C-alpha cells in the first residue's frame, strides 16, 4: 500500500537521522522518517533502578542486540580473526540512547590521512568545511565543556560549563601533570546547566543505561521534539526491507514492515539512509533489483567494505584513596591527546586518545570491571573487593582503526531477522598498525597511572567492543573507490543520500557522534540547496 509521497524520506532516527530530519524540516521540506525501534519511556530506563548493572549481562537494555533481542533488533553475525562485539541501540534516538555522550571533534589532520601519513584515504572535505556544522550541532544537542584546548583548533564557547571531574579527575590529572603531558576537560553532550528546556545534569552516573531526565543529549530529547513540532513525521516500529527504485534508476522510496508485520511503501523525492555503519550497508545490500543486482549504490563494490571501529584497551589503576568513580556523569570527565598525531619514531602511524573514565557500580567491579579481572571468590573475596572498590581509575586507550578493504559488512547467507530480512555479517581483523598503536597506548597508560600513584594496574589487553561503526559507505571523489560524494550523494543514484558512521572515510581516534551530527546537518543543507532537482 503506497502512502503520501514525501519530499525526503529518512531511514533511521539516531544521531544522523534526527539531525537531517530536523534541519530539513526547518528549511521547509516535508520529511518522513522510518524508525525500526520505538520511543523509549524514561521511566523504563534501568538507570532508575538498583539492579541496573545486571543489564551488562542480560536484559532488554544490554548494549548488544544479540543479547537484548528486543523485537525491533536484528541479529549480527561476527567473524574474522578478531570478530567484534557489535553494539548499538534501535529506538528513536538510535545509539544516542546508550552512548556515553562524549563529544570530541576530529582534528584537521584526520581528514588528510593519505596526504599526511600515506595510509587510508583523504576525505573529500576538510575540517574547515565541517566547522560551522560542528558548532550548529553542539548548540542543538547542548554540550558541556571548555574552549581553549591546545590539542584542537579553537572552538566557540561551549553552551554550558564543564562537568565536574571528581576525585577521579583530580587524582589522575596529577599523573599527567607530573609527566608534563597534555590533558583537557572533555566536551560532553551532557548539559551541566539548564539549557534549551532541558535540566542540567544531576551527576547520577549510569548515563549508558538511559538518562531519565534528558540532560544527556540523545536525539529523542534534542532534535526530534523540535522536528515533530515543525511537522516532520516519524513512524516508529517501521522496519525497512528495501529501498525501491524507478525505471530510471532513481530511488522511489522504501518498503517497510509496520509493527504488525504489514507491508507498506513510503515514497519520496529524495531518500536518506542513516541506519549506522552496519545497518546502512545491510539495507543497501538487501536492496537488489534488475538495475542494481549487487545492491543499491554498489557499482564500485564498496558498499560494506572498509568497516572500521575503534579498538579499545582498558587499564584500571587501583589507588589507596577512595576514588568514587561511579559518581558523576559517564561521559568522559577528561581526556588526553598527547599521542594523537603521527610520530613515526613510535613505529606506527596515526594515534590514540586516552579517556580518563568513570566506572559502574560494585557488581560490575566484582564481575571483573573493564579489565575483565573478576574479584576472586572464596577467602580472598572481601579483601580484594575492598581494595578495588571504590578505588579504581580507568584510563582507556582508544585507537584509530585504518580502513582495510577486507574488513567488511556483508549479508549472512543463513541468519535472518524476525521479518525474514537477511542479517549482517561483520568480518574483521586488526591491522598491524592497530596492534602496535594499541601496545604503545597500553604502555603509556601504565606510565601515567603509576605517576598518579596507582598501586596495582589491571589491564584488559586489546578488546573489541564495537560501539563506533564506520566506513562502510564511505565518502570520496572517486566513484570507483567510494560510495557517496562530498555531499553524501550516492555516486550511482542521484536522489539517494547516505549519512551516518558509514560515510566516514577514516575513523580518527575520537568518538564519532559529534562528527556524525555535523556531517548530517551539512548533508541536509546540500539536499535543500539542490531541491530543484528533486523531481
Amino acid at each position, binding site marked *: 500500500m503506497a502512502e503520501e509521497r514525501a519530499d525526503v524520506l529518512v531511514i533511521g532516527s539516531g544521531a544522523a537521522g534526527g539531525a537531517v530530519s530536523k534541519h530539513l524540516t526547518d528549511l521547509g521540506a516535508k520529511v518522513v522518517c522510518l524508525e525500526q525501534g520505538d520511543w523509549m519511556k524514561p521511566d*523504563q530506563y534501568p538507570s*532508575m533502578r538498583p539492579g541496573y*548493572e545486571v543489564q551488562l549481562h542480560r536484559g532488554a537494555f544490554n548494549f548488544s542486540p544479540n543479547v537484548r533481542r528486543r523485537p525491533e533488533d536484528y541479529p549480527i553475525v561476527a567473524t574474522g580473526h578478531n570478530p567484534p562485539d557489535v553494539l548499538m541501540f534501535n529506538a528513536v534516538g538510535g545509539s544516542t540512547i546508550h552512548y556515553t555522550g562524549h563529544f570530541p571533534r576530529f582534528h584537521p*589532520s584526520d581528514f588528510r590521512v593519505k596526504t599526511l601519513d600515506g595510509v587510508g584515504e583523504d576525505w573529500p572535505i*576538510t575540517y574547515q568545511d565541517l566547522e560551522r556544522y560542528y558548532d550548529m550541532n553542539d548548540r542543538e544537542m547542548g554540550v558541556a565543556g571548555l574552549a581553549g584546548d591546545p590539542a584542537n583548533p579553537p572552538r566557540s564557547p561551549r553552551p554550558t560549563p564543564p562537568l565536574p571531574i571528581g576525585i577521579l579527575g583530580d587524582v589522575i590529572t596529577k599523573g599527567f601533570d607530573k609527566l608534563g603531558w597534555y590533558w583537557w576537560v572533555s566536551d560532553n553532550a551532557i548539559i551541566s546547566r539548564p539549557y534549551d528546556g532541558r535540566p542540567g545534569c544531576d551527576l547520577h552516573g549510569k548515563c549508558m543505561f538511559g538518562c531519565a*531526565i*534528558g540532560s544527556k543529549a540523545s536525539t529523542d530529547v534534542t532534535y526530534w521534539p523540535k522536528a515533530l513540532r515543525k511537522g516532520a513525521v516519524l513512524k516508529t516500529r517501521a522496519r525497512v526491507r528495501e529501498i525501491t527504485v524507478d525505471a530510471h534508476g532513481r530511488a522511489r522510496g522504501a518498503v517497510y514492515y509496520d509493527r504488525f508485520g504489514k507491508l507498506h511503501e513510503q515514497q519520496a523525492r529524495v531518500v536518506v539512509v542513516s541506519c549506522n555503519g552496519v545497518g546502512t550497508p545491510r539495507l543497501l545490500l538487501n536492496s537488489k533489483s534488475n538495475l542494481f543486482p549487487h545492491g543499491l549504490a554498489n557499482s564500485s563494490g564498496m558498499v560494506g567494505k572498509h568497516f572500521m571501529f575503534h579498538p579499545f584497551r582498558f587499564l584500571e589503576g587501583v589507588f589507596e584513596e577512595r576514588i568514587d568513580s561511579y559518581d558523576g556523569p559517564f561521559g568522559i570527565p577528561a581526556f588526553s*591527546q598527547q599521542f594523537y598525531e603521527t610520530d613515526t619514531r613510535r613505529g606506527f602511524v596515526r594515534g590514540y586518545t586516552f579517556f580518563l573514565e568513570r566506572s559502574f557500580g560494585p557488581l560490575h567491579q566484582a564481575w571483573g570491571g573493564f579489565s575483565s579481572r*573478576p574479584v576472586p571468590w572464596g577467602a580472598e573475596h572481601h579483601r580484594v573487593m575492598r581494595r578495588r572498590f571504590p578505588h579504581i581509575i580507568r584510563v582507556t586507550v582508544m585507537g584509530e582503526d585504518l580502513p582495510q578493504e577486507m574488513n567488511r559488512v556483508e549479508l549472512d547467507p543463513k541468519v535472518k531477522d524476525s521479518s525474514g530480512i537477511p542479517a549482517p555479517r561483520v568480518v574483521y581483523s586488526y591491522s598491524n598498525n592497530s596492534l602496535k598503536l594499541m601496545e604503545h597506548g597500553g604502555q603509556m597508560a601504565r606510565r601515567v597511572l603509576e605517576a598518579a600513584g596507582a598501586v596495582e594496574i589491571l589491564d584488559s589487553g586489546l578488546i573489541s567492543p564495537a560501539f563506533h561503526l564506520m566506513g562502510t559507505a564511505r565518502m570520496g571523489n572517486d566513484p570507483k573507490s567510494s560510495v557517496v560524494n562530498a555531499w553524501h550523494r550516492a555516486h550511482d543514484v542521484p536522489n539517494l543520500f547516505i549519512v551516518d558512521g558509514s560515510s566516514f572515510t577514516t575513523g580518527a581516534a575520537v568518538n564519532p557522534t559529534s562528527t556524525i551530527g555535523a556531517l548530517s546537518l551539512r548533508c541536509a543543507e546540500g539536499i535543500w540547496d539542490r531541491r530543484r532537482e528533486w523531481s
Partner: protein
Amino acid sequence: MKRDWTRRKFLESALKGSFVAGGAVTAEIIAPAKAHAGHSAERTCGVYDEQQRKTLQVTMDEIIPASDDMPSASEVGGLEYLTRIAGESSRVKREIAKSIGALAALSRKQFGGEFASLAPAERVEALKKFEAQRPKQNFVRLRDYIYEAYYTQPKVWKLIGYSFYATNGPGPHMKPFDPSSLERVRKMPKLYREVPESTARSGHEESNG
C-alpha cells in the same frame, strides 16, 4: 520567557511526547516492568528442588563467605534472590541448574558425596576443580549469578560504602571543575597538525554538482 523546567515536568512531558508521537508504547517495553512488579512468593516456589537449593546455598557461601566483617551470600538473601530471578527467566533457571548439576556430578565423582555434605576444605577443593573444568561457562555463570545476588543488595552497599543514585532522584554532590587546574596545559604549544590550505582543498566544491 524562560520555562521553569523541573525534572518531574521534563519526565511528564517526555512521557507525553512518547505516547503522542510514537503511538502506543509496545507491550514488549511494558512487559518487563509488569513481570518485575508481579513477582510473588508462589512464583519462586518449586523453581529448584531441595537438593539443588541446598547445593546452591552451600556453594554461594563458599564463593562469598562471611569474613572480614562482611556477611556471606546466603546471609543477605542470596538464595531467595537467585530463586526469584530463576522464577522470572527460564534461561536463568536453566543456566543455574546446569551449573549446580555439573558441580554435583563432579563432587560425587571426585569426592564421593553430595557437594553440600563435603567438609569445608573439600568444598573449596571441589570448587577449584570445577573452576578449572571445561566448559568454563559452568563455573563462571554460577559465580557471576552469586556475585549478582550479593552486590545488588542495598544492605551490602551500605557495608562497602556505595551510594546508589537513581536518575529520578537527587544525585551526589561534586565540586565544580576548577579551570585553574589547566593553567600548565594552556601554556603548551599547539598539539594538532595544521593542514595546508592547498592540501585541504581537493575539489569538494564540484562534488555537489
